[in-house]
């Protein structure tokens, strides 16, 4: 399938998800190249988050194929996707508030001394050290890693979540609205982390409502509308108008003064 295009990292063919009678995602053909950063935009209910949930194994598609590195994948859980090298940062921060930073970064894949099943002893030292490395790599400064996440600001928490994804993702990161709840300064910090990922050549799928951010960060923009992919635009060959027209399905010319651009 992916034979003729060697550098396609992720491809979906006819990806479809129905929730009962609701067609949340319909026949999505999507493609991501190696080292590429793309954005997924669209109105509320356009199928963006649904799409992300299929790719990350949170849900299983009703129909269609997911090809990752040319191989057809069937993710039964987020763990399967992670093992394949896909990491996700979700809209509702998937962090455990009462645990500290290393525990959150290593949640579900703790480093242990020797394997005693659930009663394996934790290698806290190694986890702390590797957490420090991960945070350094993403340029995040957190004063005391042993504080519980609950005592940190939204930005710090988001940075921890992203650092977790970035430190494990070997092949692909998905971010669903990573800056939706953040202030200006914190948003900048997250955007810098994303630029760092670009430099490191780690592909990214970014779901965002913020078109300015999208134009700043990514190479390609995939527009979803009412469960379908309405089109793909290259960020440097398009403008806000064209994107908004695709998002809303209304022809260009009416959006010049729109505040959402």
């Amino acid at each position, binding site marked *: 399938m992916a034979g003729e295009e060697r550098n396609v990292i992720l491809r979906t063919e006819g990806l479809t998800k129905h929730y009962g009678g609701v067609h949340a995602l319909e026949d999505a053909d999507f493609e991501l190249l190696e080292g590429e950063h793309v954005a997924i935009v669209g109105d509320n209910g356009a199928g963006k988050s649904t799409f992300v949930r299929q790719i990350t194994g949170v849900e299983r598609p009703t129909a269609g194929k997911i090809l990752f590195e040319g191989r057809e994948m069937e993710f039964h859980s987020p763990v399967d996707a992670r093992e394949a090298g896909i990491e996700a940062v979700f809209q509702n*921060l998937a962090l455990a508030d009462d645990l500290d930073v290393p525990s959150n970064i290593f949640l*579900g894949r703790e480093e242990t001394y020797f394997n005693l099943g659930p*009663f394996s002893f934790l290698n806290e030292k190694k986890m702390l050290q590797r957490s420090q490395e991960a945070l350094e790599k993403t340029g995040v400064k957190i004063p005391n890693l042993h504080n519980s996440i609950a*005592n*940190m*600001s939204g930005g710090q928490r988001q940075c921890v979540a992203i650092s977790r994804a970035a430190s494990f993702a070997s092949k692909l990161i998905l971010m669903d609205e990573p800056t939706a709840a953040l202030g200006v300064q914190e948003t900048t910090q997250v955007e810098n982390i994303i630029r760092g990922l670009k430099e490191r050549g780690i592909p990214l799928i970014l779901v965002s409502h913020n078109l300015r951010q999208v134009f700043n960060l990514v190479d390609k923009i995939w527009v979803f509308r009412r469960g379908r992919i309405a089109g793909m635009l290259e960020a440097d060959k398009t403008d806000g108008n064209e994107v908004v027209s695709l998002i809303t399905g209304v022809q260009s010319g009416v959006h010049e003064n729109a505040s959402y651009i």
Partner: protein
Amino acid sequence: MANQAQAVSGSAADMPQKRPRSHELNALLGLVGIALIFELLGWIFQGQSFLFNTQRLSIMILQVSVVGIIAIGVTQVIITGGIDLSSGSVVGATAMIAMSFAQVSTYPRAVYPELTDLPVIVPILVGLACGIVAGMINGLLIAFTKIPPFIATLGMMVTARGIAKWYTRGQPVSFPTDSFAALGQGMTPVFVFLAIALLFHIALKYTVYGKHTYAIGSNEQAARMSGINVERHLVLVYTIAGLLAGLAGMVIAARGLTAQAGMGIMYELDAIAMAVIGGVSLSGGRGSIVGTLIGAVIFGVIISGFTFLRLDAYYQEMIKGVIIVAAVVADMYRQRMRPQSR
């Protein structure tokens, strides 16, 4: 109140963050305070020391040991964000069933006349198995049918009590072998309690088991997304709680040399209270075995303090109720003081 100021200053994102005072330390301060009050009242009303009396202290710790064993299991359940109301009834059922396999042959009305004078390992294994089965049913119900832990364990509470009564049609089961009775004699219950506490302190603090227990109570969704098998873990936690309730049932039966269907009534609430007083948060994610240990000692101090002052047992219960509610209110208050972005 100093506490409050700390929590507020800790919320400023860029300031060096101070750790809020730990729940265990709060509980310990509470313990010291309560003990000192009794010491003072002791000198005023009884003309003697409350604390400096080895016999009183050993009785005190003995009194809380059986419920303390339960509280160790309940602590873990509460940390996952659940609750276990069945432990008192499991104590009753386990006491009856285990004791029926521990009777001496010289007693003519043994439950199983052909199964007497068995080696002590038999009733112990039977008792532990009872606890495991009860706990596992709780866990499976909660993890897979998604019914609230409150309801699932309430069902088990009623059912297990029914089993305890049905087992011998309400007759007590007595005359255990010496080796089984030894489980409850002298200070053995205290050693069992402390050994169990140490074991699970280590498990909660230093193993993956503990990390996942806290993670589930903290944010179950996040735990699941991170690849933790939440269902399997919950079954394990409730099974351990059932096992410890079973162990407590055997210890109390061995201590009294008899098992009765009504044993362990209200123990589940005492155990929950010990945990809550020790700083285990009913909303999950926070608490520790050390805290519960302190909670258990606070309980013991109150009970023996009231006995020492020759006050009616009625007051004990009333005060216990007030302290439990106060501990929960304190926890809620702390929760609200936490900076929260959700």
